């Protein structure tokens, strides 16, 4: 199971490769372009329209050469060695030597057709798969609830409670949870507003919502980052995987199959998976979010791709090398795509977390509501933690009694 979890993390980490690979040439198809003098042919156009990957080097490299210009006294001698078409190709493929008076490196990119691929990805693939992932998760949780019902406290409540989370832990949790919900909702408004809100409420209402969503999203993000740091610092020590987790997973947590609740420490394997998903995915979302907040100042992907290429992992699974020369705009496009993909995955995970922490399990909400949980609940779901808690309490009481006697 741990291996599967690792494989999942690896797959998700490598997912942007597919997005970045769209410009990867397919060297299998050799097209004869002698009839067009080396320019693209009808076959090229049809292949592109059919969505096939093409080796673009036949035109990306055809950018002329000033050294080939005819001599000043020769025929066409004043026209230079680069035609207009070649100049435009050089601009498009980023090899033109562009000088600008303002705007820095970003402004030297005059043509960036990756924007069209990003736009298409955002408007189709991202919306479709992201939307269905969320709907699918909600339906799966509903089906689970209908089949399994609420997980009860087997022997009923004892009325005695133990402190599960201190106030500072609950504060950190709600800071993170509240900001994540706000960020999720505003992010969805930005992505789906044009599709769902414009037909219902019109463009003006959607534009008003978008302006506010953007403000909220950009500024609430800092609360999310603070919450992320807080829960990491407070809980990382309790979320290091150990042997108990393997046993818990084999038993399906006593939730998926059977009613035999396996022992667990402060956090069980399921909660640890949630924790690491939040830390890793949330951390990556935060990083790309900050990169998007400060456009062109924090490029992340070219360096990450370079490191990934150096590991040789991608080459091993036949994905080839990722591009390491990216225009500033491409960095932004990749950051937005990665930000949104991970956000959808994390939203789906958090749906399951919210379900099990509220309607899905009796007594679970108390842990984050008041911080006090019933002993029977703690015994059922976190028996090792309860033993440790009681042992620590006995020690404290013993020491206090000893001090009083002295």
């Amino acid at each position, binding site marked *: 199971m741990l291996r599967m979890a690792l494989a999942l993390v690896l797959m998700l980490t490598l997912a942007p490769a597919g997005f970045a690979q769209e410009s990867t040439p397919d060297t299998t198809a050799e097209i004869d372009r002698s009839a067009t003098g080396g320019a693209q042919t009808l076959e090229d156009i049809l292949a592109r329209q059919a969505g096939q990957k093409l080796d673009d080097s036949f035109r990306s490299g055809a950018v002329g050469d000033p050294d080939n210009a005819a001599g000043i006294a020769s025929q066409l001698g004043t026209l230079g060695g680069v035609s207009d078409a070649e100049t435009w190709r050089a601009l498009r493929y980023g090899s033109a030597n562009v000088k*600008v*008076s*303002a*705007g*820095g490196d*970003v402004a030297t990119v005059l043509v960036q057709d990756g924007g069209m691929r990003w736009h298409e990805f955002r408007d189709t693939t991202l919306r479709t798969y992201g939307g269905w992932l969320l709907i699918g998760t909600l339906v799966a949780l509903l089906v689970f609830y209908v089949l399994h019902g609420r997980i009860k406290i087997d022997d009923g409540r004892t009325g005695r409670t133990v402190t599960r989370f201190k*106030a*500072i832990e*609950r*504060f*950190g*949790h*709600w*800071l993170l*949870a*509240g*900001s994540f919900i*706000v960020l999720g909702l505003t992010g969805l408004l930005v992505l789906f507003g044009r599709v769902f809100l414009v037909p219902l409420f019109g463009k003006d209402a959607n534009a008003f919502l978008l302006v506010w969503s953007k*403000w*909220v999203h*950009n*500024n*609430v*993000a*800092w*609360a999310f980052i*603070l*919450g992320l740091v807080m829960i990491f610092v407070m809980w990382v020590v309790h979320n290091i995987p150990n042997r108990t987790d393997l046993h818990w997973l084999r038993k399906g947590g006593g939730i998926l199959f059977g009613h035999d609740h396996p022992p667990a420490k402060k956090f069980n394997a399921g909660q640890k998976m949630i924790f690491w998903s939040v830390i890793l995915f949330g951390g990556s979302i935060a990083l790309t979010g900050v990169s998007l*907040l*400060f*456009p*062109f100042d924090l490029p992340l992907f070219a360096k990450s791709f370079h490191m990934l290429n150096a590991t040789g992992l991608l080459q091993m699974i036949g994905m080839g090398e990722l591009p390491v020369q990216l225009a500033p705009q491409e960095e932004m496009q990749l950051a937005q795509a990665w930000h949104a993909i991970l956000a959808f995955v994390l939203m789906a995970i958090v749906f399951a977390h919210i379900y099990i922490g509220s309607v899905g399990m009796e007594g679970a909400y108390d842990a*984050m*509501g*008041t*911080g006090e949980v019933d002993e029977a609940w703690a015994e059922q779901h976190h028996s090792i933690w309860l033993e440790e808690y009681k042992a620590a309490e006995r020690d404290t009481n013993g020491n206090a009694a000893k001090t009083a006697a002295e």
Partner: protein
Amino acid sequence: MKAMLLGFLAIIVIAIGASNILGTLGYSSSDRYSGAAVRN
């Protein structure tokens, strides 16, 4: 319950604070990308 409300309140305070700080820095404004400061 108090911790939850404090958490939510902190979100609002942080958001307003961040907006003021970032606004003062002039982040993502047109000046930042095309003003005299970035002319080269």
